[in-house]
């Protein structure tokens, strides 16, 4: 995904004079050609993440459409007050593109894991959050983000589904229809979720955009059901989207099962698949947890 981001952002620099890429060393090698072609619009501030986001705000104030990029832990968590004040409070827009996600480099440990990034952004107004599930989904989402002037977070991961889906930015995509619960799979957890619910009578919605939350799609998927049972499968902190489901179904009795990354720190290294399993997000664990939660047949 990161390669596709670099290629798309480099193309946007050629096409759009408002585009500017701001880096803090991470991925700067990938932007070397773009930097030679656009020396004033590829800016590497060094290992300075408060400045990364502060300068991004200043670039937006000067009339540009900045793309700021580094690892999620250093883009959202470390300079969070800059995200809050230098972008939203100034009433300017920007596109923040992160890499490394929740556990893309587990051997790197906790310092390079950011399972709380989306939850943090949920404390702020106005953010669109895209979670592509395949490298081919990065380009349409980034192009959609750059066409606007609002606040957009694009969360890249090394975890990927086998194939891209025909997504529309901002909308959930119905992947499977069934009569039972509605399962919402966010970004790269779709394939494992589909394996987990094989043979179960469920609807699966795919969210490559998770904010704003596609309330109409969820309500439409639940139309005519006897019960509003919703399963969330998210590749970051479990239950991050649960309040949004509750809000969408505020006038309907409903049940929610929120599956995702646990809040507790693992203190394990190893490989990504080991962390997926440790958080109960592999197909077998997902299936066990979903079937255990399903109401017993009457």
């Amino acid at each position, binding site marked *: 995904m990161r390669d596709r981001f670099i290629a798309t952002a480099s193309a946007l620099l050629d096409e759009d004079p408002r585009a500017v890429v701001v880096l803090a060393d991470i991925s700067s090698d990938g932007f070397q050609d773009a930097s030679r072609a656009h020396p004033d619009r590829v800016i590497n501030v060094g290992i300075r993440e*408060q*400045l990364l986001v*502060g*300068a991004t705000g200043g*670039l937006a*104030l000067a009339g540009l459409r900045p793309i700021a990029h580094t690892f999620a832990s250093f883009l959202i968590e470390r300079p969070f007050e*800059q995200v809050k*004040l230098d972008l939203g409070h100034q009433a300017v827009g920007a596109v923040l593109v992160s890499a490394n996600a929740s556990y893309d480099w587990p051997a790197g440990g906790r310092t390079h894991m950011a399972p709380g990034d989306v939850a943090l952004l949920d404390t702020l107004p106005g953010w669109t959050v895209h979670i592509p599930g395949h490298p081919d989904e990065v380009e349409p989402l980034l192009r959609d983000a750059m066409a606007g002037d609002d606040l957009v977070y694009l969360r890249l991961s090394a975890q990927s589904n086998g194939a891209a889906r025909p997504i529309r930015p901002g909308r959930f995509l119905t992947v499977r229809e069934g009569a039972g619960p509605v399962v919402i799979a966010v970004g790269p957890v779709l394939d494992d979720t589909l394996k987990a619910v094989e043979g179960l009578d469920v609807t699966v919605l795919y969210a490559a955009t998770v904010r704003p939350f596609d309330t109409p799609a969820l309500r439409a998927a639940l139309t005519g059901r006897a019960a509003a049972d919703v399963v969330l499968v998210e590749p970051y902190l479990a239950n991050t989207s649960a309040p949004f489901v509750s809000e969408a179904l505020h006038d309907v009795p409903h049940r929610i099962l929120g599956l995702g990354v646990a809040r507790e720190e693992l203190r394990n290294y190893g490989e990504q698949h080991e962390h997926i399993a440790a958080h109960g997000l592999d197909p077998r664990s997902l299936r066990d947890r979903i079937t255990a939660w399903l109401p017993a047949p009457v």
Partner: protein
Amino acid sequence: MTSTSEDLISLRSPSPSPSPSPSPDSTIGWAELPALMSLMDGAEKHGPAATSTLDTLWVLYDRVLRVSPDTAEAPDRDRFLLSKGHGPMAYYAILAAKGFIDPAVLPTFGRFHSPLGHHPDRTLIPGVEIGSGSLGHGLPMGVGTALGLRARGLSDPAVWVLIGDAELDEGSNHEALAYAGAARLDRLHTVVIDNQSATHGWSGGIASRFSAAGWSAVTVDGRDHEALHRAFTQPHPGRPHAVVAVVEPKN
């Protein structure tokens, strides 16, 4: 509402203080600022912080900055970023004196529906470039603004950021000043109002932090208008420029 280049040249030329205001509608001068400031009351005045900036702000708005109410949205205006957002009464008084805001709103300072908070909000006040209050945000945003103007081919507008000596404690400033020097952002200017309020001081001097990072830096009497004007207009080819304006100690 872009001003012509002739306008910009005439506004920039040095003139004796008090000079004609950039705003043809405003004739309020230095002598009237205390009266404007006295219109603002409220429980929180931020005491000495309110007046430490007065002379610097006046010299900038009266004689240096090429921006007026008519050019407050013009792409080629000079930008002034008040990073040290606390104690903004001097700032509001000067914005009123220069015609950006109606002096009649000054008495609403801090009230629920007032545009004038104890820290400024750029979306509520014409001519205010940034909302500030949390320290250490203005200089990084000033760096970005200078980079953005350069990327747009606007090589003329100057970017000015006002910070305090205690605000310089915030590490974000040091990220910004180190980068700005290395990137030779010569349209970026910083005024440090030094009322010796940093808890641990700045041994070796504030200006040395900037000059070590590749800035042009000068320290002047922050109450001497001619000295401030000379410092503000000093040439600094190829380097960003810092002016440390020393005023009486806060305590």
